[in-house]
C-alpha cells in the first residue's frame, strides 16, 4: 500500500457509465494533487465494473480502489458507506471529494459522520491555502479551502477543517471542468474485498425507475432562463420559443422552479447545474449569488429585468430594463426576420 498522502474521489456510475461529476472531480483532484504532491485515488464500488477503472485513470487518477461485490451492484447507503469508511480508516486520505448528486449527498454525510470529520456541501470552488488559528497561535498549511455561497445569498464563505481528516466536500455537476481523457495514462487498479455485516444489508431496493433526462443544460450553447419575474406560463412559453430559435435550452432560477413553472432539471445555480454557454439570456432573474455562481462564466450575458438595480445587471454584457413579456417578443421577432432575410438571400 502506498504511504503517499492522497486525495480521494467517489466514483459514481449508473448502467456502466461514470457520472460526469465524478470525472470532473477527478480532474480537480489531479490539479490539487499536482499542487500538493498527493496521489489521486478513485473509489469505485460496484459489481462487474472493472472496465470503468481505466476511464478514471484516464481522467487523472493514479490509483483506483475497486470494490467489486454483488451487494454493491446498485447504490445503497450502508454497503457503499461501509467500504468508504473502512478504507478511509485504513488509508487516511487527506481530502475526499464527492459529486453533489442525490446519491452523493446521501453517502457523504453518512461517511463524514462515521469518520467524525468535516463536510461542506455544494462547494463552488476548491483551493489550497494556509489557515491561521489565533487561539492556538498556529498556522495550518495547505488546507482545502471549501468555498460556497452561504446564508441565503450575498456572502461567500470559505470553510476549512484544520483538525480532522479527510477534508470532505461535495460539488455539483458542471462546477469543475471535465478534463480530456488520456487513454495512455498509467495507474494502479487495486482490488479490495469488502466484508459486510448483516446490518449493512437491511435495506432492499425493490424497484428503480430511471427517467432519462432529455435536457442537456450543461452542454447547451445558448440558455434562455427565466426567474421570479416570469409570472405566467405564456411568458415561459416565450422562453422556450426563443431557446428553440437559438438552438438552445431553457434554464430557470430556483424561484421559477419553486413556483412550479418548470421542472427542477432546468435549474441553473449552486444547487442546480453550473453552465458556461456562449450566450445566457436571464429573463426576470434578479441574480442572487446562488444563481450567478452557476452561470457567471457564460461568454455573453443578456439580462432583462424591470428592476434597474437587479444584481444580474452588474454581470450582464447587455442590460435591458424592461418587461420580459415585451422584450422577449421583440428579440424573437428580430431573429425571425433575420432568418427570413437569410432565406431570401439564398
Amino acid at each position, binding site marked *: 500500500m502506498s504511504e503517499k498522502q492522497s486525495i480521494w474521489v467517489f466514483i459514481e456510475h449508473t448502467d456502466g457509465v461514470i457520472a460526469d461529476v465524478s470525472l470532473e472531480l477527478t480532474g480537480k483532484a489531479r490539479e490539487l494533487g499536482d499542487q500538493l504532491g498527493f496521489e489521486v485515488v478513485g473509489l469505485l464500488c460496484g459489481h462487474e465494473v472493472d472496465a470503468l477503472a481505466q476511464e478514471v485513470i484516464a481522467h487523472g487518477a493514479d490509483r483506483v480502489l475497486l470494490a467489486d461485490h454483488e451487494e454493491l451492484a446498485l447504490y445503497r447507503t450502508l454497503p457503499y*458507506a461501509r467500504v468508504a469508511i473502512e478504507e478511509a480508516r485504513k488509508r487516511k486520505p487527506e481530502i475526499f471529494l464527492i459529486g453533489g448528486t442525490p446519491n452523493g449527498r446521501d453517502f457523504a454525510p453518512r461517511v463524514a459522520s462515521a469518520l467524525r470529520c468535516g463536510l461542506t456541501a455544494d462547494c463552488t470552488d476548491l483551493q489550497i491555502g494556509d489557515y491561521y488559528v489565533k487561539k492556538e497561535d498556529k498556522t495550518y498549511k495547505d488546507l482545502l479551502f471549501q468555498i460556497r455561497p452561504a446564508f441565503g445569498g450575498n*456572502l461567500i464563505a470559505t470553510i476549512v477543517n484544520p483538525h480532522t481528516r479527510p477534508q470532505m466536500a461535495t460539488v455539483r455537476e458542471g462546477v469543475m471542468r471535465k478534463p480530456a481523457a488520456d487513454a495512455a495514462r498509467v495507474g494502479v487498479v487495486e482490488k479490495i474485498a469488502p466484508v459486510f455485516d448483516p446490518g449493512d444489508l437491511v435495506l432492499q431496493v425493490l424497484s428503480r425507475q430511471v427517467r432519462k433526462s432529455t435536457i442537456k443544460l450543461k452542454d447547451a450553447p445558448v440558455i434562455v432562463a427565466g426567474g421570479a419575474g416570469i409570472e405566467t406560463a405564456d411568458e415561459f412559453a416565450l422562453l422556450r420559443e426563443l431557446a428553440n430559435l437559438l438552438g438552445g435550452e431553457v434554464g430557470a432560477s430556483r424561484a421559477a422552479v419553486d413556483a412550479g413553472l418548470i421542472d427542477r432539471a432546468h435549474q441553473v445555480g449552486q444547487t442546480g447545474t453550473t453552465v458556461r454557454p456562449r450566450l445566457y439570456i436571464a429573463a426576470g432573474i434578479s441574480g442572487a449569488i446562488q444563481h450567478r455562481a452557476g452561470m457567471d462564466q457564460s461568454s455573453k450575458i443578456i439580462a432583462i429585468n424591470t428592476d434597474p438595480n437587479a444584481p444580474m445587471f452588474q454581470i450582464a454584457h447587455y442590460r*435591458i430594463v424592461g418587461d420580459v413579456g415585451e422584450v422577449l417578443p421583440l428579440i424573437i421577432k*428580430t*431573429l425571425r426576420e433575420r432568418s427570413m432575410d437569410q432565406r431570401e438571400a439564398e
Partner: protein
Amino acid sequence: MTDQRPIHSAVLVKQVPDTHNITGEVMTKDGTMNRGALPAIFNPEDLNALEMALDIRERTGGTVTVITMGPPKAANILRDCLFRGADRVILLTDRRFAGADTLATSYVLQCAVQKAGPFDLVLCGRQAIDGDTAQVGPQTAEKLGIPQITYAETIIEITSTHVTAERALDSGSEIVRCTMPVLLTVVGSANTPRPASVRRQMERKLAAVPSEYTAIRAQWPEFESDEALDAYLTKRDLKIPVWTAEDIGATEGSIGLAGSPTQVHKVNFVVLESTESKTIAPTAEAIKAMIAELVHEYIVG
C-alpha cells in the same frame, strides 16, 4: 392491517431564518449568523416530515414526538407542531450548542432521540433552507446506528417490522424496503402539511417553555407567580420540556463550536466584477442592433 402495532415516531425540526430576506447585518464577526436579526420560520420540508409522521400515526396508531435544537424562541415552531397534532414536543437549548455545524448538531439530536425514545421512525425534512446541506439527517442516522431512507416521498407500507417507501430522485424514483428503526428525510413533494387545528390551538395556546413565563403572565395576570403558571401548565401537560447538554448526556467537546470540525475561515461579501456592458433600450431598433452585434461576434448563428 388489523394486527398493526402502534408506530412511534420522532420528528426533528428546525426553526430557520427566512433567508429570502437576508442582509449583511445578520453576520457576526466569526462568520456565523446572528439568527436574532432575521424573521424566523418553520423549515418548510420539516413540516412535510411532521405531516408524514401524523399520517403514519393515523394509519397505525402510536405517537409523534417533535424535537428541535435552537434558541428559546424556537418554542414557536414546537407550539405549531402541537397545534397541528404532535403528541409531545421537546426543546433542546443550551448556549453551548451555539455555532454547531452539521456534525455537532447531529450528535445533539442523537443524544436527544436516544433519551426521548425508543422510536420506530425518525423523520426530518430533506434539508433546511438556511444551509441547504441535507447533511443532518444522514449524520443523525449514522450516529444512531440506524439505516436511512433519504428523499422519502411516499410511505407505501408499514408493517410491524418494515417500512416500504418511495424515494424521489432527480433522475427518477426508487422503492425501498427497510427494517425499523430507520431515519427518513422527507421531500417537499411528499404531501401538503395539514394546518393547525383550531380546537388544538384553543386547548394548547398556553404551551410554553419557562423562559416565556414572564411574557405569558403579562398577558394573563391571573397567574400571580411563575410557580403558579408552572403548576398550571404542568398539570395540563402544556409545559414544553427544555433539555440542556447535561439533560441529554452530551459531551462538552462534541457540541457547539468545539464539536464542529468545520470552521468558517472567512466570509466575503460578493463584489461583482463590473463587466463591460451596454444598456439596451427595450425597443425594436435597439434590440435589432444588439442581435446584429451578437451575430457579428458569432455568438448567435
